């Protein structure tokens, strides 16, 4: 059943009725998502809403309690391990930390998936790696070790690695967190440009509203396991949901209260005096 009236061929990732529980805690409660081909889709929500978990569910690293995740019309959680690995060769993922292999240098990190999955001659691997590094502006940094990179550079190397096998989609886990304004701008621009130039589909999980809105074609806002808002950036700005307004405009108090639930303040203070 397609609730959003998209043409099914345009949908790359099709999530229906997804529920996921960790221990007693409900992370996702029956959510539906559509990630459109060729578009940049941003999943927003406060910290701790399980946005990274969603990416791991799409990538098949976690299993949902209920519901289905289809990527390119393939049900991810019905696949055998080897078929899942075949599918993952077409999906890139950029981890929050970059997750570069720390014992090899930048060049070898980008070459890693190429060497693992193809039998290309080393001269060709070299050219491929240099092209990917050039795309993220780090061709000159190929000899550096991951420990010598700044956070933003590490993410760009990881991005070069993620596009090494020319995937159909890339999932970004909090790509803007902890970046200075310049590397933030670089990353925003890179994600946007790569998406268009390589014909990718991008899924970005982020709570950086301004940066993410700048490149998003479509935004889902998730809170407490539910999709509480969705639409283009403009539609969300105009949303009449108090929750979405609080999140988008970064207001400290609103439907998400500033205070952790507690007893009455005055009573609490006087309780010490009365004892």
């Amino acid at each position: 059943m397609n609730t959003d009236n998209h043409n099914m061929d345009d949908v790359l990732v099709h999530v229906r009725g997804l529920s996921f529980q960790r221990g007693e805690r409900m992370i996702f409660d029956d959510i539906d998502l559509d990630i459109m081909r060729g578009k940049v889709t941003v999943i927003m929500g406060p910290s701790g809403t399980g946005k990274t978990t969603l990416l791991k569910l799409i990538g098949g690293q976690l299993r949902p309690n209920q519901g289905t995740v289809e990527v390119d019309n393939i049900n991810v959680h019905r696949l055998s391990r080897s078929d899942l690995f075949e599918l993952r060769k077409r999906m890139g993922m950029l981890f929050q930390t970059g997750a570069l292999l720390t014992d090899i240098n930048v060049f070898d990190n980008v070459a890693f998936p190429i060497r693992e999955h193809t039998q290309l001659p080393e001269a060709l691997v070299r050219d491929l790696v240099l092209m990917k590094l050039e795309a993220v502006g780090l061709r000159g940094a190929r000899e550096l070790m991951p420990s010598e990179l700044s956070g933003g550079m590490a993410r760009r190397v990881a991005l070069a690695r993620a596009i090494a096998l020319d995937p159909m989609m890339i999932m970004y886990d909090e790509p803007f967190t902890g970046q200075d304004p310049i590397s933030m701008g670089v990353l925003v621009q890179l994600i946007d440009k790569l998406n268009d130039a390589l014909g990718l589909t991008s899924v970005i999980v982020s709570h950086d509203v301004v940066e993410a809105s700048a490149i998003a074609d479509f935004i889902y806002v998730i809170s407490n396991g539910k999709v509480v808002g969705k639409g283009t950036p403009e539609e969300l700005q105009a949303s009449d949901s108090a929750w979405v307004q609080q999140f988008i405009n970064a207001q400290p108090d609103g439907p998400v209260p500033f205070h952790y639930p507690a007893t009455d303040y005055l009573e609490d203070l006087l309780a010490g005096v009365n004892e």
Partner: protein
Amino acid sequence: MEWLSQLGRSGLRFFERLGRGNLFLFYVLLGSFSLLGRGRLLLQQMYSVGVLSMLIITVAGLFVGMVLGLQGYNTLVDFGSEESLGVMVALSLVQELGPVMTAVLFAARAGTSLTAEIGLMKTTEQLSGMEMMAVDPLRRVIAPRFWAGFISLPLLAGIFSAVGVFGGYFVGVGLLGVDDGAFWSQIQNRVDFYDDVLNGIIKSIVFGFVAAWIALFEGYDTVPTSEGVSRATTRTVVHTSLAVLGLDFVLTALMFD
């Protein structure tokens, strides 16, 4: 009743972990076939696991042999049989001290570094990252390290025993005046390859298997925090040492049967 449910819980946790450990081993062994065409990965790991452990093994072997020479001489000289010093030193090393001491030192030197390396790779999402690149970390990262440990430990035990005999020779013959020819000829006569040396080799092969398994499983199963990695590293040394000493008793009992 509280203590009973507590006992039940820790019992369940223990067996759950044991099960995970066995599954882990199964998949590592299953994934080992992919190593056949990639000897370089194995060689790299044998260097960091085996070759880099050689210094501590050699030095420890030398000292243990020297102590054996000194102690043995003091006991044997009372019975006028100090010519048997070589046999005593060689048999103690080849059958017991070589395999056991090497395994314990191996756990401390190489096992901890394997656990910490794998644990940190898990903590920094490198293992997840590999999985998302469709590379199985059990095949690519764990299997070469497992076989490197498995192959290296018996070789290191051999080096330990050999160096130890020279340590005993240095003290006994060099310092205390035991007859040179008697020292070696008694070893040649009384140390049997099948009964003595082979048993020691079997022990060190078993220990190599266990030490590599424990170290890698602890790393792979670590709670991905800095505290988790530190606990896992400690557990590697404790569990390996206990397992080696326990297995040593079982194997010795079987071999003397």
